[in-house]
């Protein structure tokens, strides 16, 4: 096994890379339409070097091979490798863990509060139901007492009219404590 095996891909992306502009002869610049902006006298020469003929094809390819170029696959491979190994990546993981833990903690706290709230709601619901029963009983009792008071009122007003009226005056004038 070859211990010094390269970890770059088996395909050399330089074979397919676009050559940098500096391989072109000095003074030649190409606009989007491929028209030379140099003076007219050098047009033919420039075009002949820019667009290879059959005879100049080999030379053109050789120029591309010799020119230092940007290796995109190597750059990507190294970038990903650095990104994975970097301390920054670990720090981002730590921040993610902290954030996640805080969310976890708050989520648990909220769940606890919701549970407490639910228990209190159930407790007060039960008390309200019992209160409703008691209040209906109280209503019945009050109605019954009201009737009895009315009966007694009627009875006393007829049997003891003087005392009844004196008492009534006391009640009306609120002089009961005197």
């Amino acid at each position, binding site marked *: *096994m*070859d*211990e010094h*095996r390269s*970890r770059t891909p*088996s*395909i050399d992306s330089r*074979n397919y890379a676009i050559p940098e502009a500096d391989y072109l002869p000095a003074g030649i610049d190409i606009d989007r339409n491929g028209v030379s902006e140099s003076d007219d006298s050098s047009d033919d020469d420039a075009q002949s070097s820019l667009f290879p003929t059959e005879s100049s094809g080999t030379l053109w*390819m050789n120029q591309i091979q010799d020119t230092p170029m940007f290796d995109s696959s190597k750059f990507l491979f*190294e970038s990903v*490798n650095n990104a994975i*190994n970097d*301390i920054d990546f*670990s720090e981002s*993981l*730590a921040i*993610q*863990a*902290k*954030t*996640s*833990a*805080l*969310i*976890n*903690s708050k989520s*648990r*706290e909220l769940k606890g509060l919701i549970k407490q709230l639910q228990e209190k709601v159930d407790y007060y619901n039960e008390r309200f139901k019992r209160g409703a029963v008691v209040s209906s009983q109280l209503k019945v009792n009050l109605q019954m007492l009201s009737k009895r008071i009315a009966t007694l009122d009627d009875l006393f007003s007829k049997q003891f009219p003087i005392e009844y009226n004196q008492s009534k005056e006391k009640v009306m004038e609120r002089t009961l404590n005197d």
Partner: protein
Amino acid sequence: MSRKKNILKVIILGDSGVGKTSLMHRYVNDKYSQQYKATIGADFLTKEVIVNDDKVATMQVWDTAGQERFQSLGVAFYRGADCCVLVYDVTNGKSFDNVKSWRDEFLVHANVSSPETFPFVILANKVDVEESKKVVSSRSAQEQAKSLGNVPLFFTSAKDSINVQDAFEEIARSALQQSQSDADAYEDDLSEAINIQLDGEPSSCNC
């Protein structure tokens, strides 16, 4: 170009309050604080170490939350660990009982290539306390370490700096060994790469 820049990733696990953070700070910064502050999620510190007298590496020590409420929902930081440190408190029997659970939890989430050979180290912390307060005997600790696959066991005290350096030196050695075996496995994987270029095919386009 090496896959790893000699970074040894170490994860410290254990129950709440056993002294994981104190051990990490004692080892990395040689400091100890009496104040207790629960760890939220996870945090890490790094330290340059020299292993086996010649290999320089950066040890990345990950301290984790022991309290359930502060445990992270995602334990992505377990992945890629080279060694796992299991800590318990000699005055807390429950923390000792939970050592195995922490080990299992780590193996579930770390997705290690070989769980049987993955290096663990057990630290029995707080040995500085008086004997009457200790509830976990050395013998039961040794038995458990043996039952978990002869895991190295150290009796430490972050407070009094007892055995902390020795323990982390062992951790660094184990981590480096694991890291190298992982790198070898990676090399083996690469050697099986398929060459997609056909024999006799020209190397560049002729069109």
